[in-house]
Each structure stands twice: as structure tokens, then as C-alpha cells.
């Protein structure tokens, strides 16, 4: 079957759509790869939850600094104009709505922008949340990157999350291998709108999802 876009292509689309001059937090894992496709002329400033704005690329192996890491604890670098601050200030930036965009992975996104990305809900799983819930409700816009379907073909854009939620009504855009969805508020409620389709036609996507699209 056509797999639509690769993970790298999805990251490229996210990078393309981040507005110039904004402050952005890239979540751990796949979202981190978005940084590889941001152009210098976009003037994006990266925030890392562990207390830094103006984060640069990953450090070269021979230039790592034990005191300069990102949220994934990977050694990174500092750009001109950077600043450091403590954890309460760092999360105040998120919670206070000062970040323009955060990019997160997801198990599921609901039709109203609910996000499930922190727990599979399995009874024997050891729970861990990190900064996911803070990021989900904090940024002005929350972009999710995920495959549109699980390996067995089950949609991940769903009427309601069946996995434990990270935040309610917080996702504004969903970047998937088969298409980009914007979850807009039409004044009455939030609903996803298919903005771009890849590999599948818009009609095929509609048919395979159990979600009413605008």
C-alpha cells in the first residue's frame, strides 16, 4: 500500500509551516527532527523545557558539554541571543502562552483536538509524563506529527481518544503521512479540516476515518 509521506517529509512540512520569527518547542523524538529542516532565514528561536531559549543544533561528538543538553538529555549548542533560566520560569513560559508553537508526537488526536501521547493506558505500564501535559496546554499552537493509521490500519485521528488524554482541545494541526489537518474552531465547536492530502485522495481519507471533517 502507498505509505504516503516519510517521517522526514512530514518533518519538512512542519518546518515549512512554522511562521518566521516565532518561538518554538520541539518535543522529544520525531518532533526533534523538525529542527533539521528549519532555515536560518526563518529566524525561529527554539525553547527547551530544561531552561533555555536560543538552542542550537546537536553538539558535535567532540564538542559536547555536560551542562548543555536538551529535553531529551542530548548535548546541544547555544546560538547568539540565547538565554538560560530555571525550571519554574521555563514552564511559566509554556503555561503562560509565550511559545508560539510546540510540536509533539501522538498516539491519538481527537476530532476536537484532544491529545493522547503520554500513556498507553496498559494496566501494568509504569506511567511517565514529563513535560507533555504542560506543553500540550501551553503553546499558542500545538502541531502533532504522527502516522494517520496504526500498523493494523486503525485511524489515529479519532472521534474521541481511547488512550489516556494529555490535554483537551489543544491540538491545532495534525501532520500525518497521508495529509495535514487543521483543527479549527468555527465558533461552535472544533473540527478537523483536511488541508493537504498525500498518497491517498481526500475521499479515501474521509472514508477511512470515523471523524467528520469540515
Amino acid at each position, binding site marked *: 500500500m502507498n505509505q504516503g509521506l516519510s517521517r522526514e517529509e512530514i518533518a519538512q512540512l512542519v518546518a515549512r509551516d512554522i511562521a518566521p520569527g516565532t518561538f518554538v518547542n520541539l518535543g522529544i523524538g520525531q518532533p526533534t527532527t523538525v529542527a533539521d529542516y528549519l532555515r536560518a532565514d526563518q529566524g525561529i528561536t527554539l525553547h527547551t523545557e530544561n531552561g533555555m531559549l536560543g538552542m542550537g543544533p546537536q553538539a558535535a561528538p567532540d564538542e559536547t558539554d555536560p551542562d548543555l543538553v536538551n529535553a531529551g538529555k542530548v548535548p546541544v549548542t547555544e546560538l547568539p541571543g540565547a*538565554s538560560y533560566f530555571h525550571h519554574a520560569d521555563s514552564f511559566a513560559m509554556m503555561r503562560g502562552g509565550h511559545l508560539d508553537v510546540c510540536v509533539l508526537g501522538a498516539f491519538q488526536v481527537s476530532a476536537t483536538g484532544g491529545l493522547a501521547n503520554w500513556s498507553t493506558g496498559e494496566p501494568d505500564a509504569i506511567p511517565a509524563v514529563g513535560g507533555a501535559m504542560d506543553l500540550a496546554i501551553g503553546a499558542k499552537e500545538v502541531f502533532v506529527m504522527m502516522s494517520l493509521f496504526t500498523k493494523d490500519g486503525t485511524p489515529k485521528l479519532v472521534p474521541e481518544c481511547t488512550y489516556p488524554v494529555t490535554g483537551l482541545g489543544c491540538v491545532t494541526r495534525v501532520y500525518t503521512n497521508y495529509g495535514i489537518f487543521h483543527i479549527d474552531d468555527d465558533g461552535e465547536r472544533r473540527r478537523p479540516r483536511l488541508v493537504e492530502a498525500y498518497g491517498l485522495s481526500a475521499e479515501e481519507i474521509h472514508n477511512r476515518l470515523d471523524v467528520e471533517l469540515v
Partner: protein
Amino acid sequence: MPEIAETAAEAVSAVHSGATVLLGGFGNAGQPMELIDALLDSEATDLTVVNNNAGQADAGLALLIKERRVKKIICSFPRQADSRHFDEAYRAGEIELELVPQGNLAERMRAAGAGIGAFYTPTAYGTALAEGKETREINDRNYVLEYALPGDVALIKALYADETGNLVYRKTARNFGPVMAAAAAHTVVQVEELLPAGALAPEAVVTPGLFVDTVTVIGTDSGTAAAKEHHPALRSQGSKTTTAAEGA
């Protein structure tokens, strides 16, 4: 990157009538006098102003009050020897006063900047300033519920900005600046000098640039005093782009 305003008038153009304006400063220290003067010259009226005081003598905020362009003031200490314009407006019933203990005032703005909706503070419990407010006992201590206090615009004064909007302050002129910068939807800063990105040491930045929307360069006594010292945030390799003398 913040907008660089050529003039104070341009810098305060974001203040619209009816806005809630957070005015920095404690006494003269950190008070953005030139921005307030520009606000005075603007058309903005019907303002809600947050400041520690309610204007002094015949300048700045006191004149805004004299002209009856402040409908409400939220402050901790309105009454001063030279607060005659406030006193007159208040006694005439022509200005609303919300009196807030100074620490609650700072914490309410801090909450606004930090996305905290409300908080329980022990300050003012059992006093007239907590009348009608919710209270709660937590671990044998009594607290009053206070709500976040956001602003539409903050007008503040810092010492240096870099081109990304990072700010550092000078001595006790820091006071309300960092708190107001985070609490307002739009933050306007007057600085003594504007420096290139990289000129301020990241460890010593006090207000990160994401809180700053507009910067304008205005030389004052603070810059004169700073010129005699080495501010720790200044990296030696940082060359200055605009000095107060060259700037607006």
C-alpha cells in the same frame, strides 16, 4: 525579534483607549518616564493602569490622571506627599482605586505571565483588603484567593536589550520590569542601548526576548551611570550597534 521603534511615540502606539497598561518602576528607578510622556502625548484614554504608586507631582502618570484618562488604577501605595492629582481625582470620585498589597500585586502579575489562574496567598488575610474574597485554610495557615492580573501592554525600562529582545536591568531598577514583561500581551521597553544578538551573556539575561515586543533606545541617567561600570551581562566581544547618543 522585537520591533525597534525609532521614537517613544511609535513605541507606545500599541496602547489603545480602554487598555490595561502595566507601568514599571518603583519611584524613579526603572520608571519608563519617556514612554509615559509619549503615552501622555497620545490619544489613549479610558485606561486601567497598574503601577506601584498613583503618580507624583506634575509629571507622567500624575498628568494622565489629571487629564482624567485613567479610569482605574491598581496599585499598592497611591497616597504620597506629592500625589495631589490622584488625591483630587479620587476625592472627586473620578478614578477607581483597587488597592493591592505590593507583594500580591507582583504575584498576581507573575501568575498572569506564568499561566496560573489564581493562587492562595497569606498576605492580607483577615484585613480589610481581603473583604469579600475567598479564603482557605491549608496546613493550619489561612490564605486569600487572588487572581492573575494580566495587562494588554507593559511599558517598562531596562538597561540593555539585544536585537532578540533579551533584557538586562540595572540594580534596583529591575523591580517590576521582568514581571510586567511576562504579564502583558504586548511589552514595550525603553533601553539605554541596543546591542547585537550575542552581546549579552546568556547566563546573565534577566528577561528573555520572547517577552519583548517593542524596543526603543532612549538615553537617561541610568545609561550615564552604567557607562562608568562594567555590567556583568556585557560580553567583551560584543560591540554596540546603537548607543543612546546615536539612537532616537
